[in-house]
């Protein structure tokens, strides 16, 4: 049913319908509306969950670790500073193979302190072993939560997942969203059956320590599970498409890419702007296309290699930067195109909520096609 919803509220509805048993909540802009909406649902007996108002984000994810290990479907939401605070627990949750779902309303990292959007927060945790989904709009932000639970909980995956969507740009914006019904979600997402759990009837020690004799193999298994998740995403995403008409089987999506000479690679809400800019450029006769990455971990290397094999220029947009190097997506796309002669140029832009317009995209295409790139786009030299 189509509803006009604020992004946060659409996400909260999706979480509610996913039937988590334990929700741990700590406020931080710009995800606070999600946990507030969930609290109201619990208070009105619409969501039958234990709602824990923890004392900080480290404890938020820790409570999820406990709840998931004990056999509950669980949920939390955070961003930026909060995500950074739970850094060690992120590695722990993934290593302990607990299918926790966490919404990330992407926000810049301080210092300098910023409440506005960029993707530095979740990108900086790309090594941790979590699946990472990035939403282009509120429809995807909503749907990706169901997909995330289904994939994460699959016994051949058993890894936690971030569902990322741009803070303020998506979280605080009203968009029409086609919401599923509870019956729809129950059909798609069955009850959580943990592979193993803390249980007096079958005692298991969770999270033992591994000596050098075992550690590397455990990490290999995590990597293998994350890479195998591609197949699980294909299956679960296709099933979603069959049931509800929106197919999420692909980790990437091409937009007017098949005959493009210049390709833009991007993630998140910026893709909407890019698509509009591409339509304008196409009307002017330019052969430009977009490769949207919807799943960043596992990294869709093969898809990128295949879908960009015919282009002459690639411009990778990054709302993040690995300081001292380049934007994360730029580096990984370059790796995917290693061995080809296709020039890949990285544009770091939109940091700390700096607006990106269609004209900026047109300019980036022009820069790429004239061999320029690997720069901070939109740098205000006058204030330096």
């Amino acid at each position: 049913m189509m509803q006009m919803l604020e992004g946060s509220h659409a996400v909260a509805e999706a979480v509610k319908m996913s039937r988590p048993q334990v929700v741990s909540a700590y406020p931080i802009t710009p995800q606070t509306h999600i946990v507030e909406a969930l609290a109201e649902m619990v208070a009105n007996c619409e969501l039958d969950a234990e709602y824990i108002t923890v004392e900080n984000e480290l404890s938020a994810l820790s409570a999820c670790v406990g709840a998931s290990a004990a056999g509950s479907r669980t949920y939390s939401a955070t961003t930026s500073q909060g995500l950074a605070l739970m850094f060690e627990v992120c590695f722990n949750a993934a290593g302990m193979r607990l299918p926790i779902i966490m919404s990330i309303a992407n926000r810049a990292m301080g210092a300098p302190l910023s409440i506005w959007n960029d993707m530095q927060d979740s990108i900086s945790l790309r090594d941790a072993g979590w699946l990472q989904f990035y939403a282009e709009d509120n429809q995807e932000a909503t749907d990706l939560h169901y997909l995330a639970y289904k994939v994460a909980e699959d016994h051949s995956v058993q890894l936690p997942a971030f569902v990322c969507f741009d803070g303020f740009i998506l979280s605080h914006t009203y968009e029409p969203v086609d919401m599923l019904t509870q019956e729809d979600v129950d059909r798609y997402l069955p009850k959580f059956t943990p592979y193993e759990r803390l249980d007096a009837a079958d005692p298991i020690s969770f999270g033992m320590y591994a000596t050098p004799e075992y550690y590397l193999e455990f990490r290999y298994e995590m990597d293998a599970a994350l890479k195998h998740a591609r197949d699980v995403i294909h299956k679960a995403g296709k099933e979603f498409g069959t049931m509800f008409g929106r197919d999420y089987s692909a980790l990437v999506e091409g937009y007017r890419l098949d005959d493009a000479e210049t390709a833009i690679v991007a993630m998140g809400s910026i893709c909407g702007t890019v698509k509009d800019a591409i339509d304008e450029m196409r009307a002017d006769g330019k052969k430009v296309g977009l490769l949207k990455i919807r799943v960043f971990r596992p990294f869709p290397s093969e898809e990128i290699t295949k879908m960009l094999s015919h282009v002459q220029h690639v411009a990778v947009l990054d709302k993040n930067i690995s300081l001292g190097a380049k934007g994360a997506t730029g580096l990984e796309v370059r790796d995917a195109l290693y061995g080809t002669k296709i020039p890949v140029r990285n544009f770091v832009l939109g940091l700390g909520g700096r607006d990106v317009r269609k004209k900026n995209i047109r300019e980036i295409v022009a820069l790429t096609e004239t061999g320029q790139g690997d720069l901070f786009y939109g740098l205000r030299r006058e204030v330096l």
Partner: protein
Amino acid sequence: MALAVGCRARPGKARDNKTGSWRVFKPSFDDDKCSKCGTCRTLCPEGCITEDEAGNFVPDYAFCKGCGLCAVECPKDAITMKQEEK
């Protein structure tokens, strides 16, 4: 043996590690002096002292580290520590 998902294990494997090999001193239990109070069994940090059918307390030498706590705490001085011949 295949790795357990998430570095987990079910009980039992600690017993593969025979900590009795750590021992320098070995406790010897004098059943005649023993008053069957059970203090040794209660206080052993390994939990390796058990009661046999006759009611005597017997350490499991596969695990006994020879710490000597049982000997010191026995109210009847029924346990003596002797340097082990290896």
